[in-house]
């Protein structure tokens, strides 16, 4: 036996004596988004214990929400928040703080007309997701949507921590990721691990969150499930989508799901034929998808044709999975097989979309200004801020 072994054993004994017996943090804290007024904080401990979250405005007093139930998967929902306000919080079990204090932003009210959000997709490995999480944590985005294939290779529960929650931890303690179901996520129990690992809004058509909507400021977001739920005419999802779109008064409408309707790699033609007319009829602004491991932005498309007005389709699948080859289609405004994420800034009638690589460099951008023109949305293409835009570029 070497001399080092007793030293390691003594260190382990001392560390275990300093922590709560049998209790350590395995995941979290993770911010969730159960509805348009609340925030959920979740974490996992390796032994059952009670749950407690202390939170409060940046310069205010602490409030506490606790649950005495002894669990390993902890979930505390914080309601009654001031819309759009930044809160600090900390998680505790057994009255012992389990992680450093962090902050989150409460969901914004419908009168709030300026905010940012991010889009990512097909997160694989740890390098790219970690760098994306770093960029999000450094940015001022409120939330991130995920276009699906959160965990490779098959969305298994045992892979979620190593493949997603650990690489994304720096962002997840500050803001939510709201994912769509990808085909890889659905390989395990039809996507059950994803649905249990994320706190997501509900829909009023089914009993789960395979598809859902939420509002942030003056924007409506709809997440669709084109992998495990029927979306064809007459299906509950199709009817729900049409109803939500027809009833909304939000200025901006964003939709996201996994397989792209328009892609220079592989388009989901069924989604295109069934859903695109609905998007156009109700004035959806941008549709985000993933599945193809690249970044692509189309010209505005109406009636299946890139006409300069209509719906812009963005594929963001550059979250770390092996990049996909492509052949630029006529409707493609920019396509590149490169890693990254998308950042969108909404400011009243103006939207700015920036495609960033994992280091934050902008390689494509788009402005949609609804105040321009005679009531028609006219997307205006701006120059890249990161480097001169090279349509159909390759990294």
């Amino acid at each position, binding site marked *: 036996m070497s001399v080092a072994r007793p030293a390691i054993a003594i260190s382990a004994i001392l560390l275990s004596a300093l922590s709560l017996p049998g209790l350590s943090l395995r995941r979290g804290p993770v911010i969730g988004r159960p509805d348009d007024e609340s925030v959920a904080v979740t974490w996992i401990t390796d032994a059952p214990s009670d749950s407690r979250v202390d939170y409060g405005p940046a310069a205010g007093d602490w409030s506490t929400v606790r649950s005495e139930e002894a669990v390993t998967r902890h979930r505390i929902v914080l309601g009654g928040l001031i819309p759009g306000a930044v809160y600090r919080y900390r998680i505790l079990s057994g009255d012992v703080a389990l992680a450093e204090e962090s902050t989150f932003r409460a969901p914004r009210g419908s009168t709030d007309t300026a905010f940012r959000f991010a889009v990512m997709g097909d997160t694989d490995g740890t390098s790219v997701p970690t760098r994306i999480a770093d960029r999000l944590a450094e940015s001022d985005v409120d939330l991130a949507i995920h276009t699906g294939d959160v965990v490779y290779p098959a969305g298994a529960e045992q892979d979620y921590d190593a493949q997603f929650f650990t690489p994304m931890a720096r962002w997840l303690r500050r803001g939510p990721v709201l994912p769509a179901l990808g085909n890889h996520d659905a390989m395990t129990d039809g996507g059950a691990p994803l649905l249990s690992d994320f706190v997501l809004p509900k829909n009023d058509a089914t009993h789960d969150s395979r598809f859902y909507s939420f509002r942030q400021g003056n924007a409506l977001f709809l997440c669709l499930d084109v992998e*495990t*739920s029927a*979306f*064809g005419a007459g299906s509950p999802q199709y009817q729900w989508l049409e109803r939500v779109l027809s009833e909304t008064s939000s200025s901006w409408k964003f939709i996201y799901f996994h397989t792209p309707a328009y892609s220079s790699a*592989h388009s989901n033609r069924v989604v295109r*034929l069934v859903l695109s007319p609905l998007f156009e009829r109700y004035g959806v602004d941008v549709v985000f998808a993933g599945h193809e491991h690249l970044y692509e932005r189309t010209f505005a498309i109406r009636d*299946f044709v890139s006409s300069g007005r209509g719906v812009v389709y963005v594929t963001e699948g550059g979250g770390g999975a092996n990049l996909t080859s492509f052949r630029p289609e006529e409707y493609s405004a920019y396509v590149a097989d490169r890693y990254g994420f998308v950042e969108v800034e909404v400011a009243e009638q103006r939207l700015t979309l920036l495609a960033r690589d994992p280091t934050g460099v902008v390689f494509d951008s788009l402005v949609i200004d609804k105040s321009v023109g005679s009531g028609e949305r006219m997307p205006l293409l701006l120059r890249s801020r990161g480097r001169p835009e090279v349509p159909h570029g390759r990294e």
Partner: protein
Amino acid sequence: MSRGSRFGVVLAALLSCLDATAVSAQAWTPNTRIDVPAAGHFCLDGEFSWYRPESFVDRDGTVERFPGGLDFLLGVFRASYAVWHRLALGVEAPYRSAEYDDPGLEASYSAQGLPGVGAFVDWAPGSASAALRPELRFEVFFSRSEQDQVVNVRDGANRYSLTLQLGQGEAERSPNWRYWGNLRFEYAPSIVDRDRLLETRLEVLGGPRVASLYGQGLYVLILGGYRTATAALQEANFFDNRTSQNGFAGILVDWGPRPANEAPPLSLSVSAVHDLRPRNSLSGWRTTLTLVAGL
């Protein structure tokens, strides 16, 4: 009748038939029947199919119904000439039209055009007097470059196919029954963004003579089969990149001599077929009219 005048008669009959079916909005499907003409003779084959899938069914059986009408029309003209005993060379020229009409759109969208051209070799090994008559077709189809529109009429992937047909030889020829079957393998090499395609299709048909018409038997055949492919690449549209399967069944009304070069030199068939238990596949009715002429 000279060979030239016979050709004129057949062509006139073919054209009048095409015109009539266009007016009455009927349609047809690709013919899987192989007719190897006698040495020194021609075989002309015109067929039209109308396929109206009401839905796409995914790999789990989830039915995605189209909110509007999706229609695929396909006309195929084939001409072959037997250069040797039981060996014929032929060419194929299809014409495709596709249309999508959604209630949410300002207009319906359609595309028409020539998907490409094909060349084939038909071979009937063995004796015609045997109980079963095997016939083989090897075909190369050169597809025009891919497009990505509302609905496509071409997909850019060349095809290599081999079809084995087994039908009644003279020894088994019965005036009261008609049957045959075929097995088809199709291969398309990978193109830029798409894996290679392998498709296998098995089809069997059989049924009794139910009437006589102009001295020829009128047969009603039950048709059934199964198709499996590595991707849902159907009707020149790439619907899904995962394996695609479906069964199919229907009815075929067949009139005229088999083989087609026997007198009279015309045979006609009409079929209606529906997809069964599709997975990653379109589902709908396909109706077909086929006219085969030998001269």
